């Protein structure tokens, strides 16, 4: 892959890391708040259903996580498994798209369904 492509992936990995850092802090706080005294679907959906703010937050979270995860797995596959080249790029893209699709489906399920 070209040097420019590698630089773009590096920038995307760092940019999504910054977004994810903020999202994960919020996510951890919500998890710890939500599990006190037991977790129920009613409690989860009561917080998220119809909420544009949570919908946007989780959609951004999913987009950043799918991008970050796919690029990270590509790096690990290259360095630890020697899996590089066009097949690795397509695999990375497929993993990113599957994560994005499953993630947005989950966001839709808890916010809009």
């Amino acid at each position, binding site marked *: 892959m070209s040097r420019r492509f590698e630089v773009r992936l590096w920038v995307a990995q*760092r940019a999504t*890391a*910054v977004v*994810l*850092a903020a999202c*994960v*802090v919020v*996510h*951890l706080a919500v*998890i*710890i*708040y939500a*599990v*006190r005294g*037991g*977790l*129920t*679907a*009613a409690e*989860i*959906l009561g917080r998220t259903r119809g909420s544009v703010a949570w919908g946007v937050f989780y959609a951004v979270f*999913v987009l950043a*996580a799918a991008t970050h*995860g796919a690029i*990270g*797995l590509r790096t*690990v596959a290259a360095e630890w498994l020697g899996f590089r080249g066009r097949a690795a790029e397509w695999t990375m893209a497929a*993993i990113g798209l*599957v*994560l994005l699709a*499953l*993630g947005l*489906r*989950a966001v*839709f*399920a*808890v916010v809009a*369904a």
Partner: protein
Amino acid sequence: MSARRNHAGWWAFLAHRISGVALALFLPVHFLALGTALNGEAALDGFVKWSEQPLVVAAEWVLITLLGAHLAGGLRVLALEFLPWRGWQKTLAALAAAFALAAGLVFALAR
């Protein structure tokens, strides 16, 4: 053990990488579990009830600790790359480990 591997920075790198792979593998499962809400509140509640088994709660604790480790380890990497703090590498690694354990413990106490 080689000098390279007996270094806080190497262990921090390894923890960051392993936690990242584990979280990437867990994400699809997490998304599929939340997706059960497409079949109604009762379907999601069934999954929530299933997740109250001790082994699943223990796995959740491991995941929260891994999430805390990956977050803190990632902030350490960003600080090393973008801030002039290289002499603080061991301190940052220790802070990352402490944050991960703290996240896991707070979750365990709350759960």
